[in-house]
């Protein structure tokens, strides 16, 4: 959680968000839950050819 708090403080600064400590802590709490979701996906192996999104087309 401390790592995530530090991450939120740095990432918020990078996005030029002026937030007080209480807001940063609340966001860190939410991001901790999101991180649990991300962990579920990180360990899941998929073929390298699995495209991340629809193939880009230069014209439609």
């Amino acid at each position, binding site marked *: 959680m401390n790592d995530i708090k530090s*991450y939120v403080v740095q990432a918020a600064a990078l996005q030029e*968000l002026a937030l007080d400590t209480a807001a940063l802590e609340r966001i860190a709490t939410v991001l901790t839950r999101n991180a649990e979701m991300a962990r579920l996906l990180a360990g*899941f192996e998929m073929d390298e050819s*699995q495209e991340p999104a629809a193939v880009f087309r230069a014209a439609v």
Partner: protein
Amino acid sequence: MSFADRREAILAGTLSAVDIVEGSLQGISRRDEQYNCFTRITATRARKEARHLDALRARGAPLPPLAGATFAVKNLFDVEGEVTLAGSRLNAARAPAARDATVVARLRDAGAILLGAVNMDPYAYGFTTENTFYGPTRNPHDTTRTSGGSSGGSGAVVAAGLVDFSLGSDTNGSIRVPSSFCGVYGLKPTYGRLPRTGAYPFVHSLDHVGPLAHDACDLAALYEIMQGPDAGDPACAQRAPELVQRELVKAVAGLRVARLTGYFDRWATAPAQAASRRAASALGARAEIELPEVERARAAAFLITAAEGGALHLPTLSRHYEEFEPLTRDRLLAGALQPGTWYLQAQRLRAWFRERIAQVFRDYDVLVAPATPFPATPLGEDWIDLNGQRLPLRPSVGLLTQPLSFIGLPVAAVPMREDGELPMAVQLICAPWREDNCLRAAAALQSAAVARCDRVGP
């Protein structure tokens, strides 16, 4: 009264559109205070549209198919001359919409009369319609409980019988959850089927729009009318409208039905599981099956929602954090700050999951699952105990809907209710572009009186 019956009554002169509108406006004025559905009533527009229909009848011109049917829209749909709130106080300062959203315009042209815009979770990020600025929308079946969300106003306004139907949007379950909590029918079509032009976005790659109504036949009629390509929505399919009303008489003949177990039982209370068993049995289900990696699919939907929703609102949040809905702003900011790799891995899983589920539809046409883990919860509740686990309530409401909209499958939400119990819906899930099968199965449950949509009377 069906849409066709109402049209016939106007044609025969036993009903006038003006009388319908005046009666409806009186009902809203008398009863909506207890539910808080409407954020805007479009009385002037409704009266004008009603006079136009009565004038058509007076001069012997043909009446459009939805003549005299009344409706309301989630307040994220553009309505000409009205401000599109999208559930937000900040949006109240925006200019009024120049024109109707595409689906609103198609319904208007079909003779439906718009009575107003209804409440929702701010920017559609929520499942309970507990809106800090516009108040909660209360469930007509028990006003101490939520109406679900984020299209809670759209569910409640139909359940209360204040309109004939409504429009909602569904990113992770926002049509199906209010359908379940309020006990009404809902249709979340295939991703890209109905145009979203003029609907305030939340998550571009997951947003759908669709109808909520009192029965499956109404859903089919509305779905037919709202279809068709639209250049304003890049995701909208270039497909001609597919007619489904004539298919409903086939019921489930020839359809291969299975009930979903595993994840969909694990995250459902006993009454929700029982509802899905009743529906599956009535539809002649031949199997109980598990889908692969549903937990991960839900996690991926969760992360994509947070990232895209957060990115959309980041500029406004950076300037107006204090004015943003308190229940939403920290979740959006957390999403905006997520590492990019999380988002990309979630998108990769989305493609993987779509391929696996496509294989399931080689063997089955309709999959049955509960729409919500539990019935409507009390207003103000933050936590829920679900099968022995204590979970944050608001995100958990969408546990059973999120993995399905994640890959854009069409789903009909069909209300089930036992005597003395709160309503709960089941999901009838079909392969992409097979809304006809969703609606056939929904109509079959309705005909068999297994489904039950109780309108709360005055």
